[in-house]
């Protein structure tokens, strides 16, 4: 066997691929599903927290800052383990899916809150003054003038964060979640061949490249910002 043949046999082994592709596919489904749910719930919670913080009620703002700082400081793995192993002890058992979803939602919300807050702060005071001077309420000003602009400012960091955190679905293997990397790892030890990991790599590309492309397009469409 030539070196090249050995390389193909090791990383692109069709026999192994044929046997394990259903595992990879179902794992991809789990990863994509949780990733999507986390993106929706994490972004929604993050935006909501940034809006609450903009109300400038001091105790509330301090709570939000504490939440964001703590969740960004802790490794998500630690949170996952706490939720999965400690919550049953206080009568709130969580399955692997819920644990991973909840952990990553909170972590994404913490980052999203900071990005949106940064976007809100970046806007000149005159924006809300102009809106308020025409009779818009605080809430109308927030939803029609402030958030759309803050969101556009926050899109690049948010995209990076959504992708980074969706990759953390792989941490779910500690709570035995059948996500794509976990399944690939089991398959490659069973078959004594790393081909399933190659397949997992392609699965990740399949999942995240479209997200990145979509984000690029959004950024281009919002080029009104000079």
């Amino acid at each position, binding site marked *: 066997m030539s070196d090249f043949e050995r390389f193909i046999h090791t990383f692109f082994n069709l026999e192994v691929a044929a046997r394990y592709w259903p595992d990879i596919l179902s794992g991809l489904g789990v990863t994509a599903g949780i990733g999507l749910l986390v993106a929706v719930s994490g972004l929604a919670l993050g935006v909501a927290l940034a809006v609450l913080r903009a109300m400038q009620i001091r105790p509330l703002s301090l709570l939000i800052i504490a939440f964001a700082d703590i969740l960004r400081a802790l490794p998500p793995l630690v949170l996952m383990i706490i939720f999965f192993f400690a919550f049953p002890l206080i009568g709130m058992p969580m399955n692997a899916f819920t644990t991973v979803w909840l952990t990553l939602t909170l972590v994404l919300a913490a980052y999203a809150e900071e990005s949106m807050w940064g976007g809100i702060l970046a806007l000149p005071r005159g924006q809300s003054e102009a*809106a*308020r001077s025409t*009779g*818009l309420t605080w809430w109308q000003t927030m939803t029609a003038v402030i958030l759309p*602009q803050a969101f556009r400012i926050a899109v690049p960091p948010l995209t990076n964060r959504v992708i980074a955190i969706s990759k953390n679905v792989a941490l779910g293997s500690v709570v035995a979640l059948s996500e794509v990397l976990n399944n690939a790892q089991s398959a490659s030890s069973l078959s004594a061949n790393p081909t399933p990991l190659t397949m997992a790599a392609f699965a990740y590309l399949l999942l995240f490249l479209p997200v990145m492309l979509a984000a690029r397009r959004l950024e281009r469409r919002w080029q009104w910002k000079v």
Partner: protein
Amino acid sequence: MSPSPILELVGLHKAYGSLSVLRGIDLRVWPGEMVCVIGPSGSGKSSMLRCCNRLEESTGGQVVVDGVDITRADVDINTVRQHIGMVFQQFNLYPHLTALGNVALALRKVQGKSKAEAETLAMAALERVGLVDKARVYPAQLSGGQAQRVGIARAIVLEPKLILFDEPTSALDPETVGEVLKVMRQLRETGMTMLVVTHEMGFARAAADRVIFMDGGVIVEEGVPAAVFGAPQHERTKAFLARYHAAE
């Protein structure tokens, strides 16, 4: 029956912490009048203007708009603000909306008009400032003069009783100042009541019904332009105008 003022400031005071910047302003603006406010930097011109729609809260005295003291706690300020337009030095257009969207926003959100109705009215307002052809353009693609005219359209579309202008031409290139002043003159001819803080002495002299000179948080002198510019009574007014002429 004598007409009542659109705007009446009674003993208006404003302090930022311990810094007192308005120290008893009494002023009446009558329907259809254009009053220009001049005075050195830091004399409290912007503060006074911003107290008129409560972008700043006054710390004493009254702001009476069309007979209602709007500093009272039970006043719905959002309703009042529909009747008081404001035009800003930095335009403050919403960059994520087109010129049309900028003008139509309050019609939709505050007055609850349909999209079609709001756009028709917004188009009419853009027409009045001569910018129908820029309706679909975003603020970033407008010149300063055009942006400020959109700012004026955004204020007039609500058919306010009074428009407050805070140095509307100070951020403009000299070439575009004229087009904004022209729109303001036309507005005055339609009977709009206007309170204008400005450094454009030529404009104040030619177009104002009355000129107010402020210094140190008080109105030092007021009168028709010919009087204030031609024969100022107070030393501070003379000194200010002399500095101004020297600078020109």
